[in-house]
């Protein structure tokens, strides 16, 4: 399912049923979440999961083509942890 599939499904379920509204809704949600992470904030969605940033330390890497050493600076990487409910749900088909 892509973002546009999600937009279509949302449109069917909102008052007025406008696709334009659904688009704004889906974009607003992911934009706000991105914004929160940009500010270093953690996101917690009950029943779904949480997002936080993890730090990757600076390291010496190598250019695989030339095998030259390159300094890779430290960086932050987004990380998602599925909530208990969602974990169970995803695994439920098996059980």
């Amino acid at each position, binding site marked *: *399912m*892509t*973002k546009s599939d*999600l937009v279509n*499904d*949302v449109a069917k*379920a*909102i*008052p007025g049923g406008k696709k334009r*509204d659904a688009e*704004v*809704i*889906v974009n*607003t*949600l*992911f934009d*706000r*979440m*991105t914004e*929160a*992470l*940009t*500010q*270093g*904030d*953690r*996101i*917690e*969605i*009950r*029943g*779904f*999961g949480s*997002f936080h*940033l993890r730090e990757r330390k600076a390291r010496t890497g190598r250019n695989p083509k030339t095998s030259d050493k390159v300094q890779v600076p430290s*960086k*932050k*990487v*987004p*990380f*998602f942890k*599925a909530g208990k409910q*969602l*974990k169970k*749900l*995803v*695994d*439920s*088909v*098996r059980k």
Partner: protein
Amino acid sequence: MTKADLVNAIYERVGFSKKESARIVELVFDLIKDTLEKGEKIKISGFGNFVVREKRSRIGRNPQTGEEIEISARRVLTFKPSQVLRNQLKSV
């Protein structure tokens, strides 16, 4: 940030009532959950992909007692952030 902040964002930007906005935020996450439950992936361009992965059973060990136990086969959810999101967050 919590769900309440997202509800407010919808309320301010889209002009639905608070109550409707709350229902809508719930709806979007429910739609995503339903899809993942079916084992299907979710691709949000500019944000990332949520992918359900099949894990085979393996032998694990209780780190406290050293006892070997079988970890059953399972499905797990992983999130792969998009390059766009990664670049935005690199130097936060």
